[in-house]
């Protein structure tokens, strides 16, 4: 395997990892029947908080924890407004993003221009010694391994556990679930918090690994792409992994376009992920029957326990 190709493959993994985290969290949220459009905001606040914690403490682990907590705090705000006060999920999600962009910029003011050493890779003994394959697969930071474990866990949780079944039932029909005595609001609250934690983690990855520094608005639409990935995955964790890596590859392709001999202005190449997102949405959404079968039926609808 050619060294450039190997390096490209490695950067694809770092580009895909934040997308995996953000999207798998939103997938769980949506499976419970909640649409949280605020991923971008949660990611940014997660990014800046984890950077701050890691910078001050010097401990990467504290940075990761801070990112998770910050994302959950933002998600709790969203959950309180939409689930308890029954505000519109669309409007509240937009508010979360606008708020998150502002707050993260405010917090991050004093961190602009500071570099961070980044998260150290954690080679897996023996396996990482394998030529090429070892470097490609078994010499990553803990968050890369974690993303795969998380997807597998979510997949197992949704398919195999009773709690996962309850979560899916709430997303399918909150009224039927309520009639069975399931605590709809509580299930959704917890799912939303999980989504926040994942978005925070995605943000942490951006500011600690992907570009180890804080830049205002550094998520650059990844939160929105994560939303599209959930649709692309038709709400299935396995397909989500595939989609995230596809998008990771596209975003790296546009970065390395010049090096690969593609002579197109960089701005036009940078449009690629967004245009591909639209294309993918068209391909998936045009099959209305498929969307109707797979999309959680009660997504985005407010639940009034009294009715």
């Amino acid at each position, binding site marked *: 395997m050619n060294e450039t190709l190997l390096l490209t493959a490695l950067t694809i993994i770092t580009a895909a990892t934040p997308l995996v985290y953000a999207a798998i969290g939103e997938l769980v949220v949506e499976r419970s029947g909640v649409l949280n*459009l605020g991923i971008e*905001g949660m990611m940014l606040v997660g990014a800046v908080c984890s950077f701050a914690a890691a910078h001050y403490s010097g401990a990467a682990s504290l940075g990761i924890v801070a990112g998770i907590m910050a994302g959950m705090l933002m998600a709790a*705000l969203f959950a309180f*407004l939409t689930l308890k*006060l*029954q*505000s*519109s999920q*669309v*409007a*509240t999600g*937009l*508010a*979360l993003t*606008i*708020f*998150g*962009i*502002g*707050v*993260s*910029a*405010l917090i*991050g*003011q004093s961190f602009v221009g500071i570099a961070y050493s980044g998260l150290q890779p954690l080679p897996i003994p023996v396996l990482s010694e394998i030529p090429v394959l070892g470097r490609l697969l078994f010499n990553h930071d803990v968050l890369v391994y974690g993303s795969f474990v998380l997807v597998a866990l979510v997949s197992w949780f949704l398919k195999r556990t009773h709690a996962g079944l309850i979560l899916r039932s709430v997303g399918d029909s909150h009224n039927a679930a309520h009639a069975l005595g399931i605590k709809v609001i509580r299930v959704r609250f917890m799912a939303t918090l999980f989504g926040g934690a994942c978005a925070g983690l995605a943000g942490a990855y951006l500011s600690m690994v992907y570009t180890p520094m804080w830049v*205002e608005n550094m998520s*650059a*639409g990844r939160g*929105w792409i994560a*939303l*599209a990935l959930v*649709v692309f995955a038709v709400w299935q964790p396995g397909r989500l992994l595939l989609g995230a890596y596809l998008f990771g590859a596209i975003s790296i392709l546009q970065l390395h376009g010049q090096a690969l001999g593609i002579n197109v*202005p960089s*701005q*036009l190449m*940078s*449009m690629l992920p*967004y*245009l591909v*997102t*639209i294309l993918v*949405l*068209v391909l998936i*959404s*045009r099959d*209305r029957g498929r*969307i109707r079968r797979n999309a959680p039926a009660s997504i985005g609808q407010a639940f009034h326990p*009294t009715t």
Partner: protein
Amino acid sequence: MIRLQKRAAPSALMGYLAPVIALFITVLAGLVLFALLGVPVLDAFHAFFIAPISTLYGLGELGVKAAPLIMIGVALSIGFRAQVWNIGAEGQLILGAIAGSAVALALYEVDAWYVLPAMMFASILGGMSWAAVPALLRTRFNVNEILTSLMLTYVAVLLLSFLVAGPMRDPDGFNFPESRLFHDAATLPRLWGGTRLHAGALVALGLVVVGWVFLTRTLLGFALRVNGTAPRAAGYAGFNQGRLVWLALMIGGATAGLAGLFEVAGPIGQLLPSISPGYGFTAIIVAFLGRLHPVGVLFAGLVMALSYLGGESAQITLNLPLAITGVFQGMLLFFLLATDVLINYSIVRKQPRPVS
């Protein structure tokens, strides 16, 4: 303990009061924020809310900032009423600016009355073309317009950056990524000497009136309202839902495009890589804060314009980060969404449970 009790009917009073309460709480929260940042609270209050509008120039700036917010806010209100979630107005604004600028640069040698109208026409077409994509994809392929309109905003930003660095760059501009300065014939007339207030403010006021009449007095406005609240009733009354989606997005695109032109042909005077401090996104808050009503949007637009000016003023006088504007805007929307609960619920004191 307190708890929420559903009202028999939505409170009309609270409908008007909730935004005021939200605004009040936001200001309070803002003062707490200033205190946390270690700034003298009263100084900060003065710098943020009073200083920016205590001069004639400042009032003019308020109008300059409010004009695009009000224009787009009115258009988005109409769309949101129909449950068409066009959140890509920022991209449509950029496309309008690009198209209008293209005409201005193409007619660079021409000094005639028709230059400005031609630019306006082009900008409207530009904005509409960008909004046509989500409209087409939603009506033909069932694609959610939230994601497509937003993705196109990122594309628009990149397109603008490409154009000012390449095809539309000032040939005598030492390779700076900006276009030529527009001639007078391609610049909006000023309304008031000593300020930057331009004719776009009048257009914004006009749009408030037009939007109000459209929404309350025309068949299409009525159809949009019905489609948003009871889609089956809209079908029963004979309103075509696909056409209503198109209409809502076209109104948004045309208005945002025009607002974009007013920025480049007004206060800026040329095409730059960055022409809007997020007017297209802030207009979403303006629309909600204004209760999706054009007159409400007028007031909400002024409030949000003040938040921009306040942020700039606080940055200059108190060395506070500019990001504080975004925090204010986000908080205001949150508090508004939270206080909206008072429209449908009243707060009652929970009876303590008898000890058994």
